[in-house]
């Protein structure tokens, strides 16, 4: 048994958790999420750098909330998501045990939220090289070029809403796109409506997105949708000095204000 | 001739509007195009897609009897986007209609039998079609018994027709409202429909029962009938799931392998028992 499997077995045996959200290797060799509710299943657990998924999404599932004492394998993005969710009062009804791998590949189990927060703050990531490159490219474009770029991307969107589904911050029990009185976003997939959908998604995540990049990574048509919130987070940090997923006490930037917020465009 | 494009609606003019209950209305519809009227025929149990152009379509039964020719009637509660738009229509407005869709009640097989109707709330319209269809050939059937209830007295639909059925000697009507829904001058029964049914069980010999209403009434009512000696294939129901196309393509109404729109909406209790409980 690996040290992870030993640790999880221990957590089950001393009653700290009764459900563990983790990864296992599927038949096609990719890590898939797994939900372990007893010691006998611990053997399938894996936790490697290829486990990129953000499992904190599952913390909103009814079945998980019912389990009460939940353990979760968390990569750094997941940790930030948990910090942000706690700051938005979303994880009140479960006792969570968070397990991560530190930079030396050692297992860390956080005893308190403070410990977790301190770890996150000490290991706060820079934007990935890839995203930085794309962001620079986009910023260097003229406005009309950017318009062309994004409308072309959005024309391919099929409105499968996978970007919403994998987002740990999209936890509303009923989404704006699901209402039809009024119909804010068209049901059919067509560029105008798609653009509105992605604008709305980004705006609703403004100051809350923790930059895990899952939405862009999993988009079946390969739209880099995460760039919208990456850009917004940059703005928010520059304008208001707020970082998302950084502190459990912060709330989020668009939920608060300072009388001295600066802008140059209001006449 | 090419087969008809099943997604193109007939145009229907709203010829009459009756307010039945709070938010519930009955529309009488007439074909705008006489050719359509000549082509169109339906049988009791079938439903249609009623559409407000620009808003969408909504599914409900045809509430008038096929024995009353020249028009169609539908009764609906305004609750969603389409039904609200429909409720905002005025006399002589034109709406779309696609149909008729689905299977029918096997009326010919019921000749000579006693018929029991059990329904609640807005579940009466699909049976009203059938009830009038039977009453218009009254001599072919035995006893006709109707159990009908609504949340409150005000929520009962077809109030005038209920009055008429109550006064007919050849119809046995149990009219009830849910506890708390009665008014001081209410003379009918008080209690949920399944309770009333249990207290006043219909006789099961040579009888057929038809049950329609919200899923909970169907799920509770059918076993009660079974306990009272009705054979499973003598208990009929009409299901209604979310539907979009009406012709077995869009997939919304499936219960297991069954498409409620084309294999139903009329099912026997036997058939329902063989389905997953996804209705």
């Amino acid at each position, binding site marked *: 048994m690996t040290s992870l499997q030993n640790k999880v077995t221990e957590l089950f045996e001393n009653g700290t958790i009764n459900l563990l959200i983790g990864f296992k290797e599927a038949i096609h060799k990719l890590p898939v999420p797994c939900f372990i509710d007893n010691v006998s299943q611990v053997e399938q657990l894996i936790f490697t750098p290829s486990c990129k998924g953000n499992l904190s999404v599952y913390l909103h599932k009814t079945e998980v909330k019912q389990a009460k004492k939940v353990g979760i394998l968390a990569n750094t993005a997941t940790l930030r998501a948990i910090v942000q969710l706690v700051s938005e009062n979303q994880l009140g009804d479960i006792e969570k045990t968070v397990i991560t791998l530190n930079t030396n590949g050692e297992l860390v189990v956080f005893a308190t939220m403070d410990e977790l927060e301190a770890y996150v703050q000490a290991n706060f990531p820079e934007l990935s090289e890839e995203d930085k490159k794309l962001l620079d490219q986009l910023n260097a474009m003229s406005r009309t070029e950017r318009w062309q770029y994004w409308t072309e991307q959005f024309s391919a969107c099929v409105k499968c809403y996978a970007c919403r589904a994998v987002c740990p911050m999209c936890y509303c029990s009923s989404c704006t796109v699901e209402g039809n009185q009024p119909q804010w976003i068209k049901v059919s997939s*067509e560029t105008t409506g798609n653009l509105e959908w992605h604008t709305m998604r980004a705006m609703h995540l403004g100051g809350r997105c923790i930059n895990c990049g899952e939405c862009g990574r999993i988009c079946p048509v390969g739209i880099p949708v995460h760039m919208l919130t990456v850009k917004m987070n940059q703005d928010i940090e520059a304008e208001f000095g707020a970082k998302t997923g950084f502190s459990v006490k912060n709330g989020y930037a668009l939920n608060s204000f300072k009388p001295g917020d600066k802008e140059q465009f209001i006449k | 001739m090419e087969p008809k494009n099943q997604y193109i609606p007939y145009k229907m003019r709203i010829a009459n509007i009756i307010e039945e209950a709070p938010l519930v209305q009955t529309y009488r519809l007439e074909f705008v195009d006489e050719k359509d009227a000549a082509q169109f025929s339906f049988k009791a149990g079938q439903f249609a897609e009623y559409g407000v152009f620009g808003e969408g379509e909504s599914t409900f039964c045809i509430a008038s009897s096929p024995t009353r020719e020249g028009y169609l009637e539908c009764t609906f509660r305004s609750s969603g986007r389409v039904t609200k738009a429909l409720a905002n229509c005025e006399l002589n407005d034109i709406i779309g209609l696609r149909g008729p869709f689905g299977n029918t009640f096997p009326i010919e097989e019921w000749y000579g039998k006693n018929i029991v109707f059990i329904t609640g709330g807005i579940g009466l319209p699909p049976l009203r079609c059938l009830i009038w269809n039977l009453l218009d050939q009254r001599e072919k059937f035995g006893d006709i018994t109707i159990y009908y209830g609504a949340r409150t007295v005000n929520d009962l639909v077809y109030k005038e027709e209920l009055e008429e059925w109550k006064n007919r000697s050849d119809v046995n009507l149990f009219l009830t409202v849910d506890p708390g829904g009665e008014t001081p001058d209410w003379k009918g029964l008080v209690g949920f429909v399944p309770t009333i049914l249990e207290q006043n069980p219909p006789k099961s010999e040579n009888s057929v029962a038809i049950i329609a209403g919200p899923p909970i009434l169907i799920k509770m009512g059918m076993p009660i009938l079974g306990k009272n000696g009705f054979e499973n294939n003598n208990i009929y129901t009409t299901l209604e799931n979310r539907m979009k196309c009406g012709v077995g393509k869009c997939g919304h109404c499936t219960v297991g392998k069954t498409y409620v729109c084309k294999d139903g909406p009329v099912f026997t209790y036997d058939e329902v028992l063989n389905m997953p409980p996804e209705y």
Partner: protein
Amino acid sequence: MDFEPKIVAFVCNWCTYAGADLAGTSRTKYATNVSIIRFPCTGRIDFMLLMKAFENGADGIIVSGCHPNDCHYTSGNFHARRRWIVFRSLLDFMGFDTDRITFSWVSAAEGTKWAGLVDETTEKIREKGPFTEFKKLDYSILEKIENDVVTE
């Protein structure tokens, strides 16, 4: 035919609407291109409303409310300001022409400022021409190709 811009103004009830009212009662002359939509507060002006206005034919938009510190509800406009800062930058990042949205503070006493703002915005939009960029986005590529084939 000369192009007459359609301008939609989203304004708060307490300041800008009253300001516009004042412009009216003072008989100040200004462009008639604007349709005013009144809100309880700038904090209530959702960004989706702006998108929908553009989608449904607006060529330009004015968003306006109480000056900072003058909000009837104390802080609605501060919240709104943060959102506008972010929203405007996001639109620009997507290549949306943000010059078509004018943000402003107009108080109940500033009837003249309102009239000037409308005139100025109308003139600017008139110069820019009709806003077709957003509306002409069409259905899927497949269908576009079909349409092209047919029109050839």
